């Protein structure tokens, strides 16, 4: 099948639109942009809509929250995207209503229900990182991102499921439950932020926070048909994010539209004195330059240089995924972009380098779960047994495997062969990205080599699962921002499954990514990325 895409450039130029899974019949009604009910077109910002109805007093925050909570209660038994649902959501919503009533100023995210991945600390809810090692653990502090969200008026609705400590690509690695994909309950939502992606996709919340170490925001965004943003390393404080691989971890955003994602990112970005690696750069108002569809010129992206990464549309990638991405490229070209092919020769080295670095750092970051201060402690008569047994009982097999790999890679005599070389590869990758981004405004690639797969399909084949990260890990190694946008569908067995494509930008240039993404999203004809599970709530 891959032979059919030997010449993607040609394909881009000549592939007729019908080969893409763009629905051509339905156009989005612009009058609905500011519709006051949540029952609106998917690519319309839920946050802006909600804000408008709150401030115009057409509905209250409690009513809006109740609508989401009702949907959450209805879908949760099938999806299992939440590990904990807040009991205070309605109380907090009522407080916002009171403030609006008193004509007090409310934050930009007032009344917005945000789901938070369970590896991000919340003071009033358990934060288990999906691990038995932290079962019942309630941190005494909010992560900086969560604190900022609360300050801007958002309501944390609950904690979402994930692969234990973020190690996995399916959310099957959770110690507590397996989350299903809202598009097809027999499939995985992706991972590790599968719970956050599924929750946004099923409209259980407005937006959600995830974390992205090797693609953990972008791959589930693609699988669940939502917008996922991995910001530049340092854009968002990691304080309060349970560390997996500190030099790669970033907190990312999920939204059902680019606007929501941009608003969420703006709310959580900025320097934090509690994170020495957080950047002091100014945070632009990411959504201020967004132009409504009505006002768009015929070629709104004229002159924008887009590079499609050749290595990502090659062997091993699902041809349907390739054609979707090429379709997206085609669409960008139609918007005025200059699309060219770019080669990143070091691309394939990213995967092994990533697994060495991430495992090494995780072996160290996870040392603190020794059962002494928090989490489950196994009673033992002797110190080493206390450590050994507590850790044996606390960690799942994937985590253990990565700790072992990381410990090995850092051991005396192996450090140079593994860790050090991986760092060298990382430098190479950073350089090649830099070069490619000097010649292009954005780079595009698939977000994952395939669409969502069946639950259990890759559970016993870790290498196949690791290979699924090929599209995303390089971006983490380079520390760059990337936006995943749903761009089409691939027919599954029973239903069509969403596909996303990845746009990679220069460091700290999230603004450009979001701007391009917004135009792309607004002009994408007829795609409805509301899963059938909740489609009744959102008639188009």
């Amino acid at each position, binding site marked *: 099948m891959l032979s059919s895409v030997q010449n993607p450039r040609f394909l881009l130029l000549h592939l007729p639109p019908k080969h893409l899974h763009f629905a051509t019949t339905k156009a989005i009604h612009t009058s609905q942009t500011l519709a006051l009910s949540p029952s609106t077109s998917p690519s319309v910002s839920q946050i802006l809509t909600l804000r408008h109805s709150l401030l115009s007093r057409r509905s209250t925050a409690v009513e809006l929250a109740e609508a989401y909570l009702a949907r959450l209660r209805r879908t949760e038994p099938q999806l299992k995207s939440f590990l904990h649902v807040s009991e205070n959501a309605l109380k907090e919503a009522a407080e916002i209503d009171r403030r609006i009533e008193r004509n007090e100023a409310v934050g930009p995210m007032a009344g917005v229900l945000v789901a938070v991945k369970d590896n991000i600390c919340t003071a009033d809810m358990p934060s288990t990182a999906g691990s038995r090692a932290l079962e019942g653990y309630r941190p005494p502090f909010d992560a900086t991102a969560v604190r900022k969200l609360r300050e801007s008026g958002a309501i944390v609705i609950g904690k979402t499921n994930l692969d234990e400590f973020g190690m996995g690509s399916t959310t099957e690695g959770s110690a507590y439950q397996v989350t299903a994909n809202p598009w097809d309950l027999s499939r995985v939502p992706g991972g590790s932020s599968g719970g956050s992606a599924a929750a946004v996709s099923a409209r259980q919340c407005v937006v959600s926070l995830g974390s992205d170490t090797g693609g953990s925001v972008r791959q589930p965004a693609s699988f669940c048909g939502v917008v996922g943003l991995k910001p530049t390393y340092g854009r968002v404080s990691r304080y309060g994010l349970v560390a997996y691989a500190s030099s790669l971890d970033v907190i990312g955003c999920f939204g059902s539209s680019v606007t929501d994602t941009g608003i969420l990112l703006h709310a959580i970005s900025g320097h934090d004195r509690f994170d020495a690696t957080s950047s002091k750069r100014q945070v632009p108002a990411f959504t201020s330059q967004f132009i409504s569809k009505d006002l768009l010129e015929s070629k709104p992206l004229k002159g924008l240089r887009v590079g499609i990464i050749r290595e990502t549309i090659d062997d091993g990638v699902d041809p349907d995924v390739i054609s979707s991405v090429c379709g997206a490229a085609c669409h960008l070209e139609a918007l005025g972009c200059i699309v060219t092919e770019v080669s990143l020769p070091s691309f394939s080295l990213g995967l092994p380098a990533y697994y060495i670095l991430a495992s090494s750092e995780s072996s160290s970051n996870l*040392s*603190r779960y020794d059962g002494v201060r928090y989490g489950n402690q196994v009673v033992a008569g002797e110190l080493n047994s206390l450590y050994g047994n507590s850790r044996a009982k606390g960690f799942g097999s994937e985590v253990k495997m990565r700790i072992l790999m990381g410990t090995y890679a850092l051991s005396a005599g192996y450090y140079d062969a593994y*860790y050090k070389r991986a760092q060298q590869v990382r430098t190479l990758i950073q350089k090649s990205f830099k070069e490619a981004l000097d010649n292009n405004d954005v780079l595009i690639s698939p977000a994952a080599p395939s669409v969502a797969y069946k639950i259990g399909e890759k559970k016993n084949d870790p290498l196949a699962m690791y290979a699924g990260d090929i599209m995303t890990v390089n971006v983490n190694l380079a520390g760059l921002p990337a936006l995943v946008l749903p761009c089409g569908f691939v027919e599954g067995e029973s239903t069509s499954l969403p596909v996303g494509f990845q746009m990679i930008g220069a460091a700290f240039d999230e603004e450009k990514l979001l701007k391009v993404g917004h135009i792309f999203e607004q002009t994408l004809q007829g795609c409805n990325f509301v899963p059938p599970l909740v489609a009744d709530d959102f008639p188009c």
Partner: protein
Amino acid sequence: MALTLFRGIQTRPFLPYPYGLFPRKHVLFYATMKSTQTQTATHEKEQPLLKVSSHTHSKRLDNVSKGYEAIIGIETHVQLYTLTKAFCSCPYSYGSQPNTTICPICMGLPGALPVLNSKVIEFAVKLGLALNCKLSLNSKFDRKQYFYPDLPKGYQISQFDIPIASGGFIDLDIPVEFGGGHRRFGITRVHMEEDAGKLLHTGNGSYSEEITSPLLAGVPLLEVVSEPDMRTGIEAAEYAAELQRLVRFLGVSNGNMQEGSLRCDVNVSVRPIGQLEFGTKVEIKNLNSFSAISRAIDFEISRQVLLHNENQSIQIVQETRLWDEGAQKTVTMRKKEGLSDYRYFPEPDLPEVILGKEYIDSIRDSLPELPEMKRRRYEKMGLSMQDVLFLANDINVADFFDATIDKGADVKLAANWIMGDIAAYMKNEKLSINETKLIPQELAELIASIKGGTISGKIGKEILFEMLGKGGTVKGLIKEKDLIVDPVEIEKMVDKVIAENPKQLEQYRGGRTKLQGYFAGQVQNFDNETIKRQGKPSASEQDPFGEIKCQELRMSKLDDRYFAPAWLQAFPLRDVQQHLDDNNAATTMEGGATPAKKVMMVADPTRESAAALQYALFHAVFEHDTLILLHVGNPYAWKNLFSFFKWPATPGASASVSYNEGSISAMKRTCEIAQPKICVLVERVEMDGKEKAAVILHHSTLHSADILVIGQKRSLSNAILGQRNGSLRGLDTAEYLIENSKCTCVAVQKKGPKFRLSSQYENQQKLLAPRITKHNTILASVT
């Protein structure tokens, strides 16, 4: 221990300082350390001056260490004096309740991240510069990983392959009593890290019940690693002491060993002299004082050498040993089976540490004067090494001294006042010099007033104590107490005394010049008020006999550095004064003569000798007695060589002679002041290749002395370094003399204010008797 041959400390061969090149081999060393207390100031823990006591192992150590040399390196953890911890904003202070000053970061909670306290870098750069290190402009933090309950995160943030500073050195001066000399020890590296937590055991032994206190967790440390340049316990202890001074001068740490703010882990190995490879090294921990460092190393050297001698060197394994202060030995703590793998890797949570040239320069410019610079400066001022070491030891004392000098005070006089009365006061009151009410300006004023003749030394002392305790100014106090007396009044008194003692006057005129002291005493006792009113020396210039003048001069000379050098500071001048007054009283009341005896005292410029002198003056001699100060010179003694650098050579005389000359003369003067009614003779003899003990014995017989007094010293360190020699094997000079002298021989050691005596007698208490008896008699005669 007989003649202990001071084999000397091996120094680095290419030391750029001449001190290091002394032929210290074949040098005799007599008295011991611990004989006198350091006359130092303030709290004892702040004084890194060493105290090394005698040790039961000494003889064994002495024998076994022959033919081996020890290689010693030290790792020192300096707890930084920052307000907050290294990577979070928790305050910390010693003694806080466990688990009170903690936060998610130092608890290592999930999600918490370290953020470097910028003070830590500043302090590291300061110490790096002070240790003459090369600074890394780009350094980084690494994680050192191991599991232990004191480590909340499971790793320690440290620096591994790129320390912030490396390749430096530290200069120091070994105190005279330990052999003196300048040393330079290499510094391998200085790096930043965080402290681990502290384990508090609850007693039931279960780990789950154990409390880990992250109180200390995250406290910033600098680890200073030395080159293996040290060879003896004393050198190692002095290295640690110098490091303590340095961190205190820099203000980067309080340097208290008791509180664990300065922790030394010592690595010791021994090898046969001449062997190039190092022996197996052993690490010693739990060293809470400088003397513990010295003693632990000496013990460890002997342990290892013994194993070598018994062909059991295979039993020396790489291990960590603990110093057991109670048992005075090292015991195995844990054996190292291979190198532990700490799996270091760069700390991803912290950015690189990048130092700008400007930043470094600004810190370099802000560095205070460091101990070494201070010592060299004081040395250039003409102070003796002992003075220099005392003054430069404590930054507060040094600052006080400098401020006094700035106010124009005479350098030597200022040093003497500070090291004498002020230090004694500080010690008694347990105050630091800043906590006394005295200010440098007033000390300068006091010195000037005495020098200018406005007041006498004795009155100066009174004013000093007044100012130390209550404050005030010299001028104000003089005025308040009306201390300057009319010279005419003194003349009147002199006239009266002379008129009232025609008999003594006649005897004096007949040649009994010793009576001059008697006259002085009479004047002083004229009435109680008058004692205080020691007028200007010039007041008595018209005294027809000159005795009064002599007395006045003696009194004022008490404060002169030249007459009371540093080693005599061990001998509190106040006591002398007190004794003088007592004695005068006794003279007045009793008036009669006691049978004169001859006391011979072995006089050297050492503390031990000063103690012996003190004993002799207070307990052995009485009026009309003869005190012979016997000085046995050895032209080859290291001290003489040493003094060549210390004392500016006087033209036409050998430097060494002038030094000893000065100190023996000073002793003589002290005797005359303390006991004006005795006859003091000085006898100088040469060793001529004989044993010192034999020479002393010979001269005591020659003079038919009734009592022989000698300072005694016992030191583990000397025992180890020294070598036995000839017939006196196993005994030291004092022991030899006690065994062999025909007269009463008293060996004096001083422990604090008390004398420790040994003699032929079983009951040493009666050696203190003469004065006590005398005193009782006086009391009896009064009632």
